[in-house]
């Protein structure tokens, strides 16, 4: 298989988790790219937490509107059938369990699926924005991240950075692996393109449960 860049592998694999009719919230960064790989027959509702369901692609030059943006303040489009609402409603949707899937980035995920993704004390203190509500309230939390940062594993025994929620994530998708967190443990479900189980283990600090057959991602 020709080399696909890590972010594309991650985004394509996560796009396979989406089903028609789902309400989906994508975070900033790799998660945003997931929208590019949703098959045309799968119709999902994307939410922007600043108050939009039915978020569409970035508008063509000259077709944007200054009062229609995503949660990062960038121009977006509203697809036919979209709706807008205030922030209390937007977070009621999130906290109240109405969002089927949220896809977020991560700094660290621990052996039990607990997530740290919002601050590095003394270095990066941007504020949690909507991350804590999304992880606490969404029906399914999927993490989109590169497997390591500067060669160091991001899936660790215990997070050293401040946690985002007491609720564990459901799935981590990296360019090396799909790892599921059910019953409080990390289980290796799939390998990245051309990646061996041994390579995944070597790049992961946390203990992984591994079955006899670990298929390669079908992208």
């Amino acid at each position: 298989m020709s080399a696909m860049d890590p972010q594309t592998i991650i985004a394509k694999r996560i796009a396979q988790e989406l089903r028609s009719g789902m309400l989906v919230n994508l975070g900033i960064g790799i998660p945003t790219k997931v929208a590019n790989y949703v098959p045309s027959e799968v119709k999902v509702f994307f939410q922007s937490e600043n108050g939009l369901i039915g978020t569409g692609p970035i508008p063509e030059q000259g077709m944007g509107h200054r009062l229609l943006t995503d949660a990062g303040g960038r121009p977006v489009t509203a697809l036919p059938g979209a709706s807008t609402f205030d922030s209390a409603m937007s977070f009621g949707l999130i906290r109240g369990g109405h969002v089927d899937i949220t896809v977020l980035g991560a700094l660290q995920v621990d052996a039990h699926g607990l997530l740290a993704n919002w601050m590095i004390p003394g270095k990066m203190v941007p504020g949690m924005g909507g991350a804590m509500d999304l992880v606490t309230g969404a029906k399914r939390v999927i993490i989109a991240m590169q497997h390591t940062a500067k060669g160091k594993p991001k899936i660790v025994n215990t997070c050293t950075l401040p946690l985002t929620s007491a609720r564990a994530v459901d799935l981590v998708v990296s360019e090396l692996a799909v790892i599921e967190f059910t019953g409080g443990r990390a289980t290796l479900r799939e390998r990245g393109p051309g990646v061996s189980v041994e390579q995944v283990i070597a790049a992961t600090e946390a203990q992984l449960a591994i079955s006899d057959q670990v298929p390669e991602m079908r992208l």
Partner: protein
Amino acid sequence: MKTVSATDAVALIPNGATLMIGGFMGVGTPERLIDELVRQSKRNLTVIANDTAEPGRGIGKLVDAGLVSRTIASHIGLNPETQKQMIAGKMAVDLVPQGTLIERIRAGGFGLGGVLTPTGVGTIVEENKQKVQINGKTYLVETALHAEFALIDAFLADYLGNLSYALTARNFNPVIAMAADTTIVTAEHIVPVGLISPDHVVSPAPLVDYVVTN
């Protein structure tokens, strides 16, 4: 409701006031009121808002001018100037999860003492907060927020003060309209009474004290 100039509206705001300001990364922020706050150099402000936008935009202009001494917000990551002033000890910043922030404001406007939320349980957000168990689930007690002034940007306002909003510029605006002693509104269009259909009024007229003339 009275119609006033931006100059007269902002003249009502004293130094040291607590302001709730609408907007999400500057979208839905009453820029004319911000510009006037800067021009009149209102100091020592406490700002309650989702974020501080970015330098040169929306609430970012207040930060640039050094007028804000305390911010209660969910995200300041896109404004390096806010972070700089926070690290230098010039501005106190309380970071609050976005869903909790809007609910604390809603509680303030709806006559509630606060809300119970699962968000933040098991994180540093729970420090120094009361926890309660309901049906076996743990919640944080998050207290209501109130302000002296709410600064709102609407799409349509009529001459009674009924408001409707456009697209993603709605965000915090209708919620803060409930939660302050005095509500000041800028609107893209000020229209005759009756033109906004009752079904499309989001903030009813009695909530609004001042609409700034266009």
